[in-house]
């Protein structure tokens, strides 16, 4: 009798295991607007956590960071400049930004604000500044000036700043920290397209991140299988404008004052550090494909990248070769 019942118990066990109990954890998500862009938070809650509370926590932290960075944006008034130098969080962030500026030989420069403003990228009223206007503005900017002002604790000498180029990276890092402290082990943040992955999927597998096709806003040209990484893309397609048949990218070369115009369509940086990924995606785009390759090979920072050029050829770095898929022509794998 016992041997006849055993198979049925086994079948019952199988049915339970394969249907009810093995049900996947469903993510909860929230979209909201901050930093002039759309933010998405996707959480895979565990049994003990309150998903709505965790989403609130993430949203509040992004809004807090936005308010903090806005207070440092383009400011030249002495009080605001003094606030930057005296606020430990802002001065630490500016310090980090200036370190990356030095390491990228100024390809990333948070003092480029007046020139971005002159091209109308902040107001949306785009214009092409005259050369003498740009030459005059170039004299006023430079990360070295900000460094000197910080070293001398002199708010009067602090140039106008745009920490927006690392703002989303900074927000991602602080949100992830808050979520992690509250026991969240699996989450995806997309802060204006900057992707940050906390942990992996609840089943332990990697997340799949699509890389937007620079020439088609509704498509992606590659996928990456990753956990616990930041993935940030910069491209000439973002916030660009066209005048007299010429397209002007919002990414300004701090050395020339002109929008970057090289063979790159987009640069994607993959790194552990959100702030670094954010800053490097801008810096490598300014450097162009050869400069970016040299910078990667210098070994100064630990990161990987995907370069897509105007002929749609794709170059990746060796750290991505086992997690990267694309239907485009792979030009090379940098070592």
């Amino acid at each position, binding site marked *: 009798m016992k041997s006849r019942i055993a198979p049925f118990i086994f079948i019952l066990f199988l049915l339970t295991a394969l249907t009810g109990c093995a049900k996947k954890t469903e993510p909860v998500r929230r979209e*909201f*607007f901050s930093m002039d862009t759309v933010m*998405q938070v996707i959480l895979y809650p565990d049994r003990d956590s309150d998903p709505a509370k965790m989403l609130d926590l993430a949203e509040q932290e992004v809004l807090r960071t936005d308010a903090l960075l806005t207070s440092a944006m383009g400011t030249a008034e002495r009080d605001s400049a003094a606030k930057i130098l005296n606020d430990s969080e802002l001065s630490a962030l500016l310090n980090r930004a200036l370190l990356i500026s030095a390491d990228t030989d100024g390809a990333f420069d948070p003092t480029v604000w007046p020139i971005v403003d002159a091209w109308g990228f902040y107001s949306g009223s785009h214009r092409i500044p005259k050369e003498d206007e740009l030459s005059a503005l170039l004299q006023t900017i430079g990360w070295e000036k900000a460094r000197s002002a910080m070293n001398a604790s002199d708010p009067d000498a602090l140039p106008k700043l745009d920490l927006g180029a690392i703002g989303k990276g900074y927000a991602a890092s602080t949100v992830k920290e808050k979520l992690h402290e509250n026991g969240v082990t699996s989450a995806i943040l997309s802060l204006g397209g900057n*992707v940050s992955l906390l942990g992996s999927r609840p089943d332990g597998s990697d997340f799949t991140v699509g*890389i937007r096709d620079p020439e088609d806003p*509704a498509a992606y040209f590659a996928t990456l299988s990753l956990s616990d990484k930041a993935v940030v893309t910069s491209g000439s397609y973002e916030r660009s404008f066209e005048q007299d048949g010429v397209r002007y990218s919002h990414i300004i070369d701090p050395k020339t004052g002109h929008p970057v115009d090289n063979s790159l369509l987009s640069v994607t940086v993959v790194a552990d550090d959100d702030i670094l990924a954010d800053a490097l995606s801008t810096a490598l785009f300014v450097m162009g494909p050869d400069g970016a390759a040299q910078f990667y090979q210098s070994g100064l920072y630990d990161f990987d990248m995907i370069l897509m050029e105007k002929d749609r050829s794709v170059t990746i770095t060796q750290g991505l070769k086992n997690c990267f898929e694309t239907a485009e022509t792979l030009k090379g794998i940098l070592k």
Partner: protein
Amino acid sequence: MTGRNEHSLSALQWILIFAGLILLLLTVRFFFDLSDGNRERALILLDGKTVRTLDLSEDQTFVLDTGYGTNTIQVTDGCVSVTDADCPDRVCTAHGPLTDNSMPIICLPHHLVIRFEPGHGDVDIIAE
């Protein structure tokens, strides 16, 4: 005693039954996974709040006043898209039909997001 043994299933037969059952259940689960995420209904969100749920089986076109401007939303043949908008960049109209939750239709100037009801797509998220 001998007669009862003749009608009992052998160990091999039991294994075959279990294997067949597992295969059947895995197939059922596979098709459940494919349909995971509701592609029959889309959500319209303004400032992160759902303001309307669209039944994608019903063709319709309407103008949505977002408070920041207007977007013309069209549902046809089970697909939703923004066909017109008075926003300055018109990125939402260039997006085309909604195909995947990793790439929702976004109109940044009008604080508008259109996406499927929660579910899975081919990818989890898009870096852009």
